[in-house]
């Protein structure tokens, strides 16, 4: 198992969040098992896992709204359930955005904004999220996508150092998704760090620098996006004159294959194709075409958790 903290060490200066030996139980049921990882400053980190893996629980513990054992430090300041001062420069959206339906977006953002420059902070975030057109409407009338944007705006309004977003793409249409990606890239360029969980792995693959994979409360992988994507595993698509025979030969040779709608996909675990090609050519099969298809994040995550 690759743990990201090995890259720089726990609590190094570049860490915006440092989690050490994080454990959490609900009664006798253990839901987080001794997790340790760091989030690097100015990076987007994807938190990935199946439903119930412990993603939201991790986020809640980092935000001090769930009891835990272990240590969580935000910018070297410890987080406790009874002391949230470390959260001064953290913005978050957990599970779904809670909005006061009788307030407008602007009123609600003003309510949550801090400091002396509230108005400029609110105007800024409304502009960034392209919400000015409906900022003065009561949020009770908002669609799911508008509500989601509002939740993200609330997370960003105080110009936080770390932004924690739980399923931020929920309910967003493709245009809004792209706007969110662009916004995250802009904020990242200004040094803001993100911890994002989502089931839409294709979106995460586009924006995340680092990846943390959780399975049943265990840390399965913590490293860079390129590490999890490469990881020595990629797919080859092959067209032969006898695909079914080719699949049988490759399976017998120990390859993992998939034949679907005339396309034979083979999982290759190293860079050399010699053995694969020899296996087929020795049986006088004709190879018509061959493509290299890098593994996507979804496949890589499944590989990481051994499914």
């Amino acid at each position, binding site marked *: 198992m690759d743990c990201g903290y090995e890259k720089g060490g726990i609590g190094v200066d570049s860490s915006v969040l440092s989690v050490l030996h994080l454990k959490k139980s609900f009664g006798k049921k253990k839901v987080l098992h001794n997790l340790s990882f760091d989030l690097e400053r100015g990076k987007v980190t994807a938190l990935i896992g199946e439903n119930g893996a412990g993603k939201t629980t991790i986020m809640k513990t980092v935000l001090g709204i769930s*009891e835990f054992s272990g240590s969580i430090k935000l910018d070297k300041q410890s987080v406790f359930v009874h002391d*949230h001062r470390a959260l001064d420069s953290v913005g*978050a959206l957990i599970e779904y955005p*809670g909005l006061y339906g009788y*307030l407008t977006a602007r009123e609600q953002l003003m309510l*949550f904004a801090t400091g002396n420059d509230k108005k400029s902070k609110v105007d800024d975030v409304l502009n960034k999220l392209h919400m000015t057109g409906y900022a003065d409407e009561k949020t009770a009338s908002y669609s799911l996508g508008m509500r989601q944007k509002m939740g993200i705006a609330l997370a960003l309004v105080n110009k936080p150092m770390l932004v924690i977003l739980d399923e931020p793409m929920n309910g967003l249409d493709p245009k809004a998704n792209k706007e969110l990606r662009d916004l995250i890239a802009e904020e990242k360029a200004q040094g803001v760090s993100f911890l994002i969980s989502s089931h839409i792995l294709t979106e995460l693959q586009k924006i995340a620098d680092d990846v943390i994979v959780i399975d049943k409360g265990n840390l399965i992988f913590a490293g860079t996006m390129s590490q999890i994507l490469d990881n020595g595993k990629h797919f080859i698509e092959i067209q032969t004159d006898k695909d079914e025979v080719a699949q049988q030969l490759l399976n017998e040779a120990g390859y993992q294959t998939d034949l679907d709608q005339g396309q034979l996909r083979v999982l290759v675990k190293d860079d050399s194709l010699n053995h694969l090609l020899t296996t087929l050519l020795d049986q006088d099969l004709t190879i018509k075409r061959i493509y290299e298809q890098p593994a996507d994040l979804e496949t890589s995550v499944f590989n990481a958790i051994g499914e």
Partner: protein
Amino acid sequence: MTRQTKEEILLGNLVKQEIYKLVKRPTLTYFWGFLLVFQIAAAIYVSRNPQEVNPQKAFLGNFFVPVMIAFFMISLCSTTLSTEIQSGTLKSLLYRKYSVYQVLISKWLSLLIYTIALYVAGMIISLVLHWMMFQKTIPLSVRLPGGHSFLQVWALTSLGSFLSLIFLLTFVLLIGTLFTSSTAALVAGIATYFITSIFNQLLFQFIIQHDWLKWTPFNMMNIGDQILTPSMSEVTRLSLFQMTVGYLAYAVLFLGAGLIIFRRRNTR
């Protein structure tokens, strides 16, 4: 800046936010209008039917408006957390730089300020209505049998009913931390009002038989009456000092239990 000062500023910010939310809630705005209309209607009825409702008693009771405020504040206090839970807003209040205790205490303080505002408004309207309709029938400067002027008795009566309401609300706030459903919280809050009212009427008879009952929270609710009428101590069987200590002790107990329950429920 000391840590304590910073904490006070944080709490002050939270209280301002809570008051802003209360002020912007439409139902609460309507209630102010309803309160005004109700009080005016009650005063007109009393002025036209003095044989049915004693105008002096009606004025002392601020034209029945404390009952309306009590019902309203019980419903507001019992549901203040459950409505935030149901709309999903409570979570976003908790994962900011404010502690779980600061979040809850700020809500309570804002509700206290709101209750004071309603009471003060009710009293001012009563004085205006007195000036408009009852100047001749209720002379405020007249001394009553206890030695107080009518105006003083009116002020002390209002203070007494306010203190009783605040005491009841501390228990309702505790109940409010137990429910996630607004309906259940509201029913429990209103039931508390009726149970307390009924039991309080029977209390003095029971105290004669069981002396320990004088230490129950129900008896502490009579503190307002005892401030106005010191001879009440003969039936409450407690001195004003004992009652004050009991009042504060129970209030702290209810609110302390509320804080513990709130933290446990929201940081699991």
